[in-house]
């Protein structure tokens, strides 16, 4: 029980970090923590070897994201208005409350542990909010990765296929590579 609550709290705290800070390094640290929490959650269902694929692929993706951001000139830590931060946080808080309210009924559809379901659906909803309030491609990628992490936690609780795990890891890495591709656009612009 304590571990479950701790996992839920850690997942929400990691996402909260991504939401509130402007520094891209801290956001990436938040995402890395999310992957770690996801790993611990999946570890309760899957063998260590298969669960660690999720963690390794996620962190590989994060390494790619960091490298692309380091090479990009678009890494200024733009300061956001406090009102924007409060709005984002309240929106996400609302999502967490809504998920807490509807999770028991979703649990009737999806017979998986409540902790996994709550973390998964909360992350999916939060990622959606995070992604929809921005036009910045890096933030869109962070939001997409959050949604995929949430879905991964739910889907891993339902099915444990090696092929799906492999392809899913490949998808995560490709999405991170896309971020690198678009940060090269910024470099091109600077050269011009």
């Amino acid at each position, binding site marked *: 029980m304590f571990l479950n609550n701790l996992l839920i709290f850690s997942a929400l705290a990691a996402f909260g970090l991504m939401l509130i800070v402007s520094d891209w390094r801290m956001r990436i640290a938040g995402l890395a923590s999310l992957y770690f929490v996801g790993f611990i959650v999946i570890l309760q269902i899957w063998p260590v070897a298969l669960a660690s694929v999720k963690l390794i692929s996620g962190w590989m993706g994060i390494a790619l994201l960091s490298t692309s951001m380091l090479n990009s000139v678009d890494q200024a830590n733009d300061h956001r208005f406090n009102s924007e931060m409060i709005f984002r946080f309240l929106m996400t808080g609302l999502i967490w409350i809504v998920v807490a309210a509807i999770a028991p009924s979703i649990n009737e559809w999806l017979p998986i542990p409540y902790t996994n379901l709550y973390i998964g659906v909360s992350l999916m909803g939060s990622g959606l909010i995070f992604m929809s309030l921005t036009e910045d491609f890096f933030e869109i990628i962070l939001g*997409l990765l959050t949604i995929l992490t949430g879905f991964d936690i739910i889907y891993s609780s339902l099915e444990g296929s090696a092929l*799906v795990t492999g392809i899913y890891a490949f998808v995560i890495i490709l999405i991170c590579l896309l971020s690198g*591709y678009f940060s090269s*656009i910024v470099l091109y612009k600077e050269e011009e």
Partner: protein
Amino acid sequence: MNAPIIWIISPAVIAILLLFIKNETFQDYLYIGISLMFSVLTLFIKIDLVGERGFLTIGIPSVLNILGRSFILLESDKFLIFLVYFFNAIWGSNSVILKRSARFIPLGLIYTAFLLAAVSVEPFLYSALIMEIAVIMSIPLLVSPRAANKSGISRYLIFQTMAMPFILLAGWFLAGGEISPVNPEQLVQATILLGLGFIFWLAIYPFHSWVPMVFDETDPINSGFIFLLLHTIYFILILKYIDGFAWLRTYSVFFQALRFLGIIMASFGSIGLFFEKSIRKMIGFEFLHSIGILLVAVGLSTTRGIPLFSYLIGSRLISFSILSWSVSRFESLETRMSILSFKDLTQKRPIAGASFLFSLLALTGMPLTIGFPPQQTLYQYLAADYPTILVLMILSNILITVTVLKLTKEVLRKKYELIYLLSALKEDLFLVFVITVFIVFGFFPRTILVRFEHLVSGFKFLIN
């Protein structure tokens, strides 16, 4: 050696090797040659050959096993394989002839390989994951790193990625329901999940906004190649789902929803096209309109709708390709052109202008075009059972026809000298050839459209 190794793994490996060739012209020719080779191979190779082997016939197995799952390409999939590689070769040749640098050379082969992998994976519910890889891979093939605007591409990525969780979850729901019926509550849940996945995949209202945006942000030679292939495969996968689940085939609400969404898309597309000024966005709206027509065809009863769907997708592939090529030809003069400058552009590129108008007419199903027979049959079927949808469908096609007539009127205001036209003919010899073949197909449409029946021949529960 087996079919997936030949048509999925080899093209992907060859595409990577082609990346090392520095000479772009040589790379283009190799790409065309290799694509043509893979399409021609379908004529000589028999999959799972039983009995006597002919002279020049090679027999190979159909299955490749990876990590406990199978990739299976059957004899009935050979037309699809032929089609996608021939499509690669034709679009590659076009980019060379029209002197447009196509971003899909050489990585288009990997993209094609992933699309085929999605069709061939068993259990086929995993195709959503492979399609996601194909979508991510398509983005560098669509957008240059120098592109300033990428909001359409971002939306494309988001909406296509959102489809994957829904389809995978629906797959889990249905895992036990392939033969035995699932309970009614489960049926509704699975249909909702599957439906949401399809809606995201096919860019159906209200998730359609990215289509005109992406068409506006990308060169038509790239967007046409990527999206025509992608949506053809999406439709094949949807048919595979309908064929694979007995309960889905008999679930009338599902087909009602397809017809309803289809007519919404057709109407949206035609209204958008009617009011649009940007030519690139116009082809985006025409794309939405044609998705709608295909959805309505699939939404008819399976015995009638599916063969009709195969004709419609054949005529759409041909007409939409010519539409994209003609816009691409225009763009050698001016990128992102407006409809307001259509008259002047047509003066400089009369053949491209004619191809543009003629292909739009074919997509609306005008008589003496390749789109006429399938569209006419669709009207007949709709008149028998769904008159409201028929009226809306005719109205949507009228809107596009009026747009074409408006443009034709603009073009005819100007006088063209014969010598000038002759020089234009010489310049656009390839388009002249294409449009001539296109017109001939309009007179004898069955000669080519009937071959597209092979596209659905593998769906034994849908065509019998």
